[in-house]
C-alpha cells in the first residue's frame, strides 16, 4: 500500500469522513477536516504528502486554502475536488498553477487513489 499521508478538506463532513475510512481500508493514511482553518492548524502538527480540497467551502475557500498551503509547504501536492463544471466559473477562479489534479464529484474511490498516485509520481507497480 501507499506510504503517504493524505488530508481531506470539505465542508461535507459525511463525505470526507467516509472517504477517510475508505482510504484507510485501502491502507492509505488519511485525515479529514471540514474547513480551511482547522486544516491549516492540523498541518502544523502533521506532515502531509497530499491535500485533497473542495473548491467551495464556507470561510476560507478552496483556492485560498490551497494558496496558503502551497506557500507554506511547497512540496505538498494538491488535488482539487469540485461539484462544479468548468462552465460555472471563469477560468480566473482556478489557481491552475497550484493544482496538480482535478476530480469531478461524485468520483470513484479508485480514481481518487489513481490521482493521488499520479501526483506523488508513483508508478502503478510501486503502488501495488
Amino acid at each position: 500500500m501507499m506510504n503517504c499521508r493524505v488530508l481531506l478538506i470539505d465542508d461535507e463532513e459525511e463525505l470526507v469522513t467516509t472517504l477517510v475510512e475508505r482510504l484507510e481500508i485501502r491502507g492509505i493514511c488519511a485525515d479529514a477536516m471540514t474547513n480551511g482553518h482547522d486544516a491549516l492548524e492540523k498541518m502544523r502538527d502533521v506532515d502531509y504528502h497530499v491535500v485533497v480540497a473542495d473548491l467551495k467551502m464556507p470561510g476560507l475557500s478552496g483556492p485560498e486554502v490551497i494558496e496558503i498551503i502551497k506557500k507554506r509547504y511547497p512540496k505538498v501536492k494538491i488535488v482539487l475536488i469540485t461539484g462544479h463544471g468548468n462552465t460555472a466559473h471563469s477560468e480566473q477562479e482556478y489557481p491552475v498553477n497550484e493544482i496538480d489534479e482535478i476530480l469531478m464529484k461524485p468520483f470513484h474511490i479508485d480514481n481518487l487513489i489513481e490521482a493521488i498516485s499520479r501526483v506523488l509520481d508513483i508508478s502503478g507497480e510501486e503502488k501495488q
Partner: protein
Amino acid sequence: MEFFKQMILPFRLLKNTDKSEDLKRYRRLWWYSVVLTLLVSLVPLLIMTGVNFLMFREAILTEIRYDLSRNLSSTSRSLQFVIEERLSALRYTVRETTREELLDEERLSETFQNLRNTFGGFVDLGVISSDGVQEVYVGPYNLEGVDYSDQSAFDEVIIRGMYVSDVFMGHRHFPHFVISVKYESNDGDFHILRATVDMDYLNRLIYVPNMGHSDDIFIISREGIMQTPSRSHGYLLESSTIDVPAFSPDIEIDETLSGTNLTCFLGYCYIENTPFILIITKERTNLLVEWFERQSLLLVFLITSALLIILVVFWSVTKMVKHVRAADRHRTQVLMNIEYTNKMATIGRLSASVAHEINNPLAIINEKAGLLTDIVSITDEFPNREKTLKALGTIIGSVDRCSKVTHRLLGFTRKMQTKSEFIYLPQLLEEVSNFLGREALHRNINIYHDARGDIPSIESDRSQLQQVFLNILNNAVAAVENGGKINIIIEPVNGQKVAVDIRDNGSGISEENLTHIFEPFFSTKGEFGTGLGLSITYGLVQKLGGTIDVESELDVGTAFRITLPLKHEPSVE
C-alpha cells in the same frame, strides 16, 4: 450567405407566425402612403388645371358676348339707319310737295323714280287721304282706290305721324313692309305718303361675318312672326321657335334661352320705331372640347407630369415600405436573438446550479455505498452478502448514471482551462470527420470538405472545438440516410471571423423543434439521446466567443453555421 442571413432561426419564427398579419400591415402602409402622396402632389396640379379651365371659359364667354353685342350693335344700327333714311326721304317728300302735286300721278311717279334711284328699295308709292282711301298709286300693281281706313296701321300713322309695318306678303306675294308718313296741312286736314319697301333690301343688311355653322341672324316682329328667313328658327312669316324676348332699349344677351335643342347664346335688340327685333343666336360651342384643343400643350404637360408623379410615387413608396419592412425585420430578428441568448444563458445557469447542488449529495451517497461495499467485502460471513453487494452495486451504478448527466450538464471536461493555440480549421475538421470515418464508410455517407478562400488560423481551444464539431457531425451522420451527403464549407468572414457550415441532406428538423434544439434535455432521438449534445455545443461555442445558427427544413436537410473569431478575449462575467 444570403440563405443563412434570411433563414437564421428567430427570423424563421417571425416569418411563419406573423406572415399574413405582417403583410397586411405593410400593404396598408403602402396604400396610405401612395394615396396620401398622390393627393398631396396631384390635387394642386388638378386645381391649377381647373382654375385654368374656368379662366379660359370666362374669357371665351366674354369674347362671345362681346362679339355678339358688337354684331348686334352694328347690324341694328344699319337697319335703323336704312329705315330711318327712307322715313326721312318720305318726310322730306311730303313736306316739300303740296297735296295737289302729290295727287298728280305723273308728278308722283317722278318722285317715286327719284326715291327709287336715290335711296333704293322702294317698290311703290301711294298717297292716302284722311278718309283712308289710296287716292294715287305709283307702282307695279293697281292699288288705286284701296281703302286702308279699317287697318290698325292707318290709326297708328294718324296718332304717331309715321308708321313701319310688319313684313307681309300682301297683294304682291313677296315679302315687303310698309312705311308711312303723315302730313298735316294748316287747315287740319292730312294726307299720308305710303311706300312699300322690298324686304330683300333689309335682308342684305343682316349679315354677320364669320358666322358659325349653326349661328343664326334674323328679325322677328313683336308678335314673334319671322320677318326674315332663318336657318333654324322658323320660316318666313311663320311663328318663331324663339319666344319674344322682353323689351329692352339696349342690346341684351341671354345665355339661358334655348332654341331648338342646342343651348345657345341669344342676343337681341329692339329696333326703334319699328316692330322689328333683331336676333342673333350663337351656338354655345363645347367649351371643354375647345379648351382641350387650345390648351393641348398644357394638357400634354399635365398628363405627363401626372404620370411621372404616379410612377415616382409608386416607385418611392414601394422602396420606402420595403426599407421599413427590412428594418422591422432586422429589429425583430435582433430582439429575438437577444431573447434567445438570454434564455439560453438562464437555462445554462439554472442547470449548472441544479447539477452542482446534486453533485454533493450524490458524492455522499456514492461514498457511503462504497464504504458499505468495502465493509461487506472485508467482512467474512456477512449475512446475505451477495444480495447486499448487488444492491450496493445498483446504488453505485445509479449514482454513476446521475453523475454522467450532471457532468455533461456542467460541460465538464477533464481540462479545466481553455488552452489557446493556433488552429487551422480545415485540418481540425478533417481530423474530426476521421473519427466518424468508420461509421460513415459503413453507411456509405459522403463527407465533403470545401475550404473557400484563404482561411486564417484561429486562436482557440482545440479539444473544445473538436467536441463542438464532433457533436454536430455526429448529429448529421445520425440524420442522413445511408448513402447521404454531408457538406462542410469553411470560409473567412470579413477577415475577422471564420465560418463553418455543416449541411446534411437528412431528415431535417421541424420548425417547432428548431426553437428548442439548443436547450438541455431536448432530444428527438428518444431513448438514444441525453438531449445535452447541442446544449453543450451551444455553451462551448459561446465560451469560445463564437455564434451558432441553424436552419432546417423537413426532408430537405439541416445546416449549422458556426462562426468563430480569429482570437477570443475571454470576458470576465
